[in-house]
């Protein structure tokens, strides 16, 4: 027997609040519900893909903010639309499939499978944020920085391969539950030697000779590949490193804060397969004195 079962606007809006498009299903509008859900999820992924693959790193922060705003807009639209449709649906005849078990199945699939899978895909393959608790990469990356890392990096089919000068995120070789951030200095087959403040790669010094000794640290400009960056040393003695050849399939990494960094000088080279991302842009930075607003949006190199 058919039943006239007027839709309850608050229930429709609530269902759209907990899952975009769910309120439309409650109103019997399967296509519109699917459209809202797909817009919410699939519009985000291509946008983030576009940000990651095509656009300059400096636009990452702005466009990721835009994706969140679009998401929020679609979500709110879904809630308002479900509310309005339910309000005008006083003579709604319940459809055969509108059973509690069907709602439950759709809800559980979306919340415990589709949505988490997409979140995981985004963090594993596209973009992930990391907070930096150590000073080992100063002055490039400061303690308290939170940054985006490009995860479409150093893998088959990825946009970028690991190269000298990149600030890489990798799995700590001595504790695989932990990530480290350091700069790649040597690629497989490179000959590395360290003498004082000089890092030699294939007998060529990375140092460009610019030395700034105005503070209590010595800041040196280095160039690895096409990337120019600054490193710092304090007055402590720097242990030299005899010439060393980076094994195949591995990279040699150093922290920019050369006297305060545990890197390949301590734990050896890092397997290339453990290099999972490249630091790209700072989106928050906090010190003991408060926020460092000047670092917001800083492109890392």
């Amino acid at each position, binding site marked *: 027997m058919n039943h*006239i079962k007027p839709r309850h606007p608050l*229930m429709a809006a609530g269902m759209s609040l907990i899952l975009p498009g769910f309120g439309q299903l409650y109103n019997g509008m399967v296509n519109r519900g699917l459209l809202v859900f797909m817009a919410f999820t699939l519009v985000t992924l291509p946008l*983030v893909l576009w940000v990651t693959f095509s656009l300059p790193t400096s636009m990452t922060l702005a466009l990721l903010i835009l994706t969140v705003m679009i998401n929020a807009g679609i979500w709110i639209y879904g809630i308002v639309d479900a509310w309005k449709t339910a309000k005008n649906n006083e003579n709604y005849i319940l459809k055969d499939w509108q059973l509690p078990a069907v709602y439950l199945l759709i809800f559980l699939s979306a919340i415990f499978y589709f949505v988490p899978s997409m979140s995981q895909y*985004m963090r594993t393959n596209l973009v992930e*944020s990391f907070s930096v608790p150590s000073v080992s990469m100063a002055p490039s990356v400061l303690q308290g920085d939170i940054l985006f890392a490009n995860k479409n990096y150093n893998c088959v089919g990825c946009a970028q391969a690991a190269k000298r000068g990149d600030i890489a995120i990798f799995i700590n070789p001595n504790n695989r539950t932990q990530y480290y951030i350091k700069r790649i200095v040597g690629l497989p087959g490179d000959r590395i030697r360290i003498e004082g403040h000089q890092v030699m790669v294939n007998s060529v010094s990375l140092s460009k000779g610019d030395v700034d000794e105005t503070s209590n640290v010595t800041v040196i400009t280095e160039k690895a590949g096409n990337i120019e960056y600054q490193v710092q040393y304090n007055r402590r003695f720097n242990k030299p490193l005899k010439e060393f050849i980076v094994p195949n399939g591995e990279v040699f990494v150093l922290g920019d804060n050369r006297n305060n960094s545990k890197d390949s000088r301590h734990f050896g080279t890092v397997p290339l397969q453990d290099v999972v991302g490249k630091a790209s842009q700072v989106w928050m930075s906090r010190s003991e004195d408060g926020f460092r607003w000047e670092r917001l949006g800083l492109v890392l190199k």
Partner: protein
Amino acid sequence: MNKQTNKAFTDSELDELLHISASATPPEHFTQQVMASINALPQTIQNRPTWWQWLALTLGGVPAIMQTLAFMFSAWHVAAIG
């Protein structure tokens, strides 16, 4: 074109008319068919969702909103570096 005029019938005229016209015979099982049609009409059920529907919405809503927000902010989800 025929011009229709509104003429009021008197009671006697109506009686006369009823006497000369034969009564219509109802179709077979007319009453049962009418009742079946009435039964087939959609029934209005109370509009308000029941308490267990609100409970399900609330209990399911908490993890659902968390997951949805986690997806929205997945790029902003911060992992710690050692």
